[in-house]
């Protein structure tokens, strides 16, 4: 590093970050604000708030989020791991506090109140968990004595048990699938892949039979006429009404009866007002980030970077896919927000952290820095 002292720190960053991902993220954030201008007002009106309440709040949240994203992206690999560790420990602790002292909202203890801002610590845990798990897997893969793999295996229950207790089925699933994906990419024997897949199926089946609300949701998904999938049916109607080109901004009517028009179902509102072509463009943005991230992961020779990038991108992509699939009725309804588009502070900060990690990890690094990991590996 010292030999390149004549370069500024910022200039160095600008030359090494992955621009397609950064551009896509910026586009998503701007688009999210625009879409929220459509989806936010009806919900705000219903709650007796000023029409642009959610848009304004989202904009205010976006500023620190962009700050988090950019500043995290400056970190070195080692700093990324350390930050992840700190955030993870703090997050899990806050989760447990929320369980004990947090207010009950819609039957779940997920929130920690900080002033007027309700923070969802489980959101912050997610990216930190991915980075830590990726590090543990990479260590486990490199070293015969296997403390890494064991640690990675132990990380899963440590993370999802608080989530299950909240309860937060959607996040649990997301974390578990991402973890499984990481394990898979880390080179899990196919025999285990097959049997873990089987266990996963058994788990889904167990959730279906043992947890009544899971079963209910699933049955509602299959039974079109139950009428209980009201949100989904309405969401579908909005795509149909919007057509390819949409009815125009502000012209939507179905958003008025969609309870979660500003969060889980903002994609449908987008469909009605801006048209399906714009929705496809949004899908393309997500696809760009995910696929570009995976390509970079593939190219990267560092095991930790490869795993961490894959994990972060998987979590991000899965969340987007699940939300969109619920909107177009390819999946039963699930509380999952659309990254950077849905309204929500915690989710935004979590995503900013995750994407900050992603950009930091995918920066083109000089060889000297890459050698750094050997030293780190030696320490561990």
């Amino acid at each position, binding site marked *: 590093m010292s030999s390149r002292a004549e370069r500024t720190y910022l200039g160095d960053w600008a030359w090494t970050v992955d621009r397609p991902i950064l551009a896509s993220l910026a586009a998503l954030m701007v688009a999210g604000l625009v879409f929220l201008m459509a989806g936010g007002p009806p919900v705000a009106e219903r709650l007796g708030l000023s029409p642009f309440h959610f848009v304004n709040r989202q904009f205010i949240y976006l500023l620190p989020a962009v700050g988090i994203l950019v500043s995290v992206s400056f970190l070195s690999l080692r700093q990324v791991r350390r930050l992840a560790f700190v955030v993870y420990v703090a997050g899990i602790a806050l989760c447990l506090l929320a369980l004990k002292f947090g207010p009950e909202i819609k039957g779940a203890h997920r929130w920690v109140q900080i002033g007027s801002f309700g923070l969802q610590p489980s959101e912050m845990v997610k990216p930190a968990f991915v980075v830590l798990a990726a590090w543990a897997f990479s260590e486990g*893969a*490199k070293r015969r004595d296997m403390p890494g793999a064991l640690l990675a295996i132990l990380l899963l229950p440590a993370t999802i048990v608080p989530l299950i207790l909240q309860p937060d089925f959607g996040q649990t699933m997301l974390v578990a699938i991402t973890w499984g994906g990481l394990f898979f990419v*880390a080179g899990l024997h196919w025999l285990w892949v097959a049997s873990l897949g089987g266990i996963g199926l058994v788990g889904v089946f167990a959730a279906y039979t043992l947890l009544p609300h899971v079963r209910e949701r699933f049955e509602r998904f299959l039974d079109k006429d139950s009428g209980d999938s009201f949100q989904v049916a309405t969401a579908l109607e909005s795509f149909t009404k919007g057509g390819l080109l949409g009815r125009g901004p502000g012209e939507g009517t179905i958003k008025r009866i969609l309870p979660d028009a500003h969060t889980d179902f903002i994609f449908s509102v987008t*469909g009605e007002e801006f048209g399906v072509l714009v929705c496809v463009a949004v*899908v393309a943005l997500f696809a760009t980030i995910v696929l570009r991230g995976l390509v970079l992961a593939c190219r990267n020779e560092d095991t930790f970077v490869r795993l961490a990038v894959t994990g972060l991108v998987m979590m991000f992509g899965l969340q987007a896919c699940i939300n969109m*699939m619920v909107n177009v009725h390819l999946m039963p309804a699930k509380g999952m927000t659309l990254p950077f588009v849905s309204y929500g502070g915690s989710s935004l900060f979590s995503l900013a952290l995750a994407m900050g990690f992603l950009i930091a990890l995918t920066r083109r690094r000089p060889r000297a820095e890459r050698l750094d990991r050997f030293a780190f590996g030696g320490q561990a």
Partner: protein
Amino acid sequence: MSADDSSDRVPHDPAPEPEYVEEPVVPQLSGRQRAFAFARGLFRLRIEQSAVRVAIVGAVFLGLFSLISGRLIYLAVMPQEPENIRRFASAASVAARPDIIDRNGEVLATDVRMVSIFAEPRNIIDKDEAVELLTAVLPDLNAADLRNKLNLRRGFVWVKREVTPREQAEVHRLGIPGVGFVPESKRVYPNGVAAAHVLGFANIDNVGIAGIEKYIDSSGLQDLNGFGFARQANDLKPVQLSIDLRIQHAMRDELVKGMAYFRAKAAASMLLDVTTGEIVSLVSLPDFDPNNPVDALEKDRINRMIVGVYEMGSTFKALTTAMVLDSGKANINSTFDARSKLRYGRFSIGDYHGTNRILTVPEVFLHSSNIGTAKMALAVGVEGHKAFLKKMGQLDRMRTEMPESSMPIVPARWGDLNTITIAFGHGIAVAPMQATAAVGALLNGGLMITPTFLKRSAEEARAKAVRVIKPETSEALRYVMRLNAQKGSASKAAVPGYFVGGKTGTAEKVVGGRYSKTKLFTTFMAVTPADSPRYLFVTVYDEPQPTPESHGYATAAWNAGETTGRILERIAPMLSVPPRFDPPKNPFPLMARLGAWGTR
């Protein structure tokens, strides 16, 4: 990036790797060692495969994103849910019906455009508010019912059908999202009760439920609606009936008065054009208002001309007389011994107006002799009697345009006794219209014409007609009926100038398995003009009571005959038969030539 690349790189990449390569993998491994190596392999993370695996993850994501994009485009391009409302509404209400007009073109039934209020519960944001506002404007709505309806998870419910323009404006002004209006056709019968039993009615969904309305549906209108054609009544050709509204009004008016005066349970009257089979008017009381048919389906509202079956009594003697004359077993001058009661087994048949002498055929008819008529039937025999009644349509259900009809009640085993009683109209129950059609055939020259409610010409009728008796027999029947109006029981209907012929019939009703002396079913048939018949009037009363003028009698002449006379008197000027103030010269040439009783 391929697998080869990564395996190439393996030696260079993780520096300490070679130490851990399984060096024991040499041919001389024991089985146990090999198993151990395999187990170790199972637990080793094959990081060298990670690039391939990342590629697999990428492929999965590519699949997911394509799936979502495809589904999005599918949703936009192929709207799978057509407009719910339109579907519901067209199924229920847009159905138009053709106008129904009478033989002169007067409107009997027509469609009026009305507006109905519906709601889409899924689109109503505040259901309680909607219920409150709607019930405030439409006070006759039940708030609890409405709330239940709006809480149904359905796309469409009716709030109120067929509202007034004022109500529509008020609901419109409420501006409740999810509440809307659909235009509907409401069936209106401008003449109210006048032709209720003929027209029947259509329900709120404009589906024909009874009468001609149902007939219209069964003859293809519903199919037309199904294809979305019949949207407006103007698109449909009006259905023209044989009914004459003026006559219908007059007949109903007289019958209502008569039924009240004779304190009868029910009454019915009809006018048949015997040359065409057209029913010019038909009234059955009690009736209903097709505009508000709440009581139309009650039991006592049946159409007594078609749906009720009764023992017709002496009017059946016309059939028996025609049968014996037509069979050649007797002629107009034949005589029948009515001096003593007719004994059959333990039964004995007597005459109501006993004459106790030998009677000619016209006398048997004139005095309505049971003995004489029974002997006529016996002269023809059981099989001949059955065959004749079959030919005259008395043993089968009569089918007209009316969807409602009844099977006649015919004895299961038909012996001599049955023939004796059926000869004078007991022991067989038929619909009055059925008997009327048969008597019409006896009078019109011998052609059996199935009655119709649709306008038609004499030619069309004749094309479908079946000859059942000889023209000469027909003349004999006209003669005896005219004679009966001049000298016998039908004189009350003998309106001057119209050369009326007639026959009374009084049947005792069966009460508790026995014939009752006080509960009567009276019938009167009158034909005008008797020399060349055109119209046949029929009036029936169910359980008429004696009146001060009737000397304690409630037989047909005193009530049905009286009413028929009044109807005829009132209606005659509207008929296409001009009155003749001089009796026709030689109206029954054959009868005069044969020197029948009464011609001299």
